[in-house]
């Protein structure tokens, strides 16, 4: 019987996990810091945030997805979080059918970093924060490219890292690391056409694959051999390179002058 493999999450799993293993959690600390407290109080006047805690020294605020523009606008204009240093999404489709989107903000005047998080359903779209932070232009394009999350009112929502005619969204957990069929034949289809798939052959993706007899693709191990040489032939040992070269002196180590490395 073929072993069952889950299709909704093809991420590599550990081959062994102890039955009674319970993963420890990083504690979600309450907000004690004065600066963060003031920011939260200020934010509470504008937006109704769900939860706020400190994780490893950075404030995490969980909000509703439709409040994202209002929250970031408030944090930028009132609290001094002027830089959107990072944003992207996490795929929780297999567990909850949702994406988690995070915005990592930096206040340079206060040396504080905040992470604003919200969740959206698979087919929902999120409002663009590009009018507030120009850097979101590219981050949101990357998020669309990698996860297929639609962004409303984005000036130029196109793929950014993958080619325009790519199939699938690579960072989703359903997308295999080695790519789906369209990905594996992408360059052959594009350059030569589908009819050349048989001639060129499938990709060799086994990292441990070594063929000692295959001289068409690689020289024999430890030896240089001519292309497509007979696998049983004696390997050609090359010691001198320019013995057959015209007007060229052969290198002699004894005559060479070795320069001191530290001048």
């Amino acid at each position, binding site marked *: 019987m073929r072993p069952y493999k889950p299709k909704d999450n093809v*991420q*590599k*799993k*550990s*081959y*062994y996990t102890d039955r009674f*293993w319970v*993963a*420890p*959690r*990083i504690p979600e600390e309450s907000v004690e810091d004065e600066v963060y407290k003031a920011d939260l109080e200020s934010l509470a006047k504008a937006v109704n945030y769900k939860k706020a805690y400190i*994780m*490893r020294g*950075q404030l995490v605020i969980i909000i509703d997805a439709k409040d994202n523009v209002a929250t970031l606008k408030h944090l930028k204009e009132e609290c001094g979080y*002027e*830089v*959107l*240093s*990072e944003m*992207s999404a*996490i*795929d929780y489709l297999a567990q909850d059918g949702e994406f988690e989107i*995070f915005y*990592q903000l930096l206040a*340079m005047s206060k*040396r504080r*970093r905040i*992470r604003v998080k919200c969740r959206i359903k698979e087919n929902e779209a999120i409002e663009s924060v590009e009018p507030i*932070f*120009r*850097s979101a*232009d*590219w981050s949101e394009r990357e998020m669309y490219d*990698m996860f297929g999350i639609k962004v409303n009112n984005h000036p130029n929502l196109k*793929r*950014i*890292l*993958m*080619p325009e005619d790519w199939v699938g969204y*690579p*960072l989703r957990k359903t*997308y295999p*690391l080695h790519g789906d069929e369209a990905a594996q034949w992408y360059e052959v289809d*594009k*350059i*030569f*056409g589908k009819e050349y798939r048989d001639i060129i052959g499938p990709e060799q993706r086994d990292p441990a694959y070594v063929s000692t007899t295959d001289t068409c693709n690689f020289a024999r191990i430890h030896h240089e051999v001519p292309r497509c040489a007979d696998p049983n032939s004696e390997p050609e040992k090359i010691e001198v390179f320019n013995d057959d070269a015209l007007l060229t002196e052969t290198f002699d180590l004894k005559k060479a002058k070795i320069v001191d*490395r*530290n001048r």
Partner: protein
Amino acid sequence: MQQRNRLEPYFENLAFERDDNTMVVNFGPQHPSAHGQLRLILEMEGEQIKKAHPDIGYLHRGMEKMGENMIYNEFLPTTDRMDYIAATANNYAFALAVERLLGIEDKVPRRAKVIRMMLLELNRIISHLFWLATHALDVGAMSVFLYCFREREYAMDLMEDYCGARLTHSAVRIGGVPLDLPPGWLDHLNVYLQKLPDQIKLYEGLLTENRIWRMRLEEVGVIPPEMAKQWACSGIMLRGSGIEYDIRKEEPYELYDEVDFDIPVSDRCDSYGRYLLYMEEMRQSIRILRQLIPMYKETEPELMAHAPEYISAPKEDIMTQNYSLMQHFVLVTQGMRPPVGEVYAPTESPKGELGFFIRSEGEPYAYRMKIRAPSFWHTGILQDLLPGHYLADVVTIIGSTNIVFGEIDR
């Protein structure tokens, strides 16, 4: 004669003459002065750029996906290939993020911290020298390229003496460093540090007051402070716009709060100001390295953090103690299992703010690994920065942003 394939003839000037007297010029993706695989589609009116569309992704290798399918220690060598000019800065940023996730950041021994800082600052010098070499070559100064590469090779020798590799170091491990400095390394470093300031003076003598260099760089690529913040610029792109923010100083990691160094800031906002900052940063790195040499001698010879749950025991323990061997076996075959949670750790790489966001679900594989590469935004800014400039300035601006495509596309 080659047989035909499916690729149609390709005209670089997509629409050479249009009704409104503009033309579209395609620049890249394989252009010698684009610092990698940048493709720029420029809409031009005469010599002046009206619109620029940077097109990236030609080096996208799926590193974030790899990070989700590899155990943490396995992923570390992959980070070398991001910003391949300063590989240790990437190794370190990743190691710091994982250490913060595990909560063992304070357990890293002092000697490991000193060695890490030495490697980081040496890498900063390598990276800045490389930047100067290629930037000067793009602008047209061939001899600076040759001089810079000469000095860079000596720094590469030092790196090679320590870790065995010239380019892809993997010299930092999660929880410390793998090796102590080889004998005589500090003397070599000292010799290098004595010679480098004269060489920097040489480059400055060739460039700083050079009329052509100043004409090519001054008032070119002006980034106002507001724009720098909007585009999340970091590193020298930010400090070149008059905003003083260096993560080494503001959110210190390792021993950066113990060493004495300055953060150079320029109000010029143009490429020339950034060039001056690069030169000054190299001097500051030399200053840090000089302070690190006596600090190293005072430390205990311990290199890896003691956290048996996550980090393998020292080699002697593995060879002699049964439990250490078992733990080592589990850590190598299954990988460490960090607690559930997420962490974002920013560091100051030579290019800017390099941060790793890691979401862990308690598995040995990261659930989500997002790499915040500074060059990504420094390329994005081109679409606002280039319009209004002339075609010849494009190369200067790309050069002064110091972008590396390994980390833009990841």
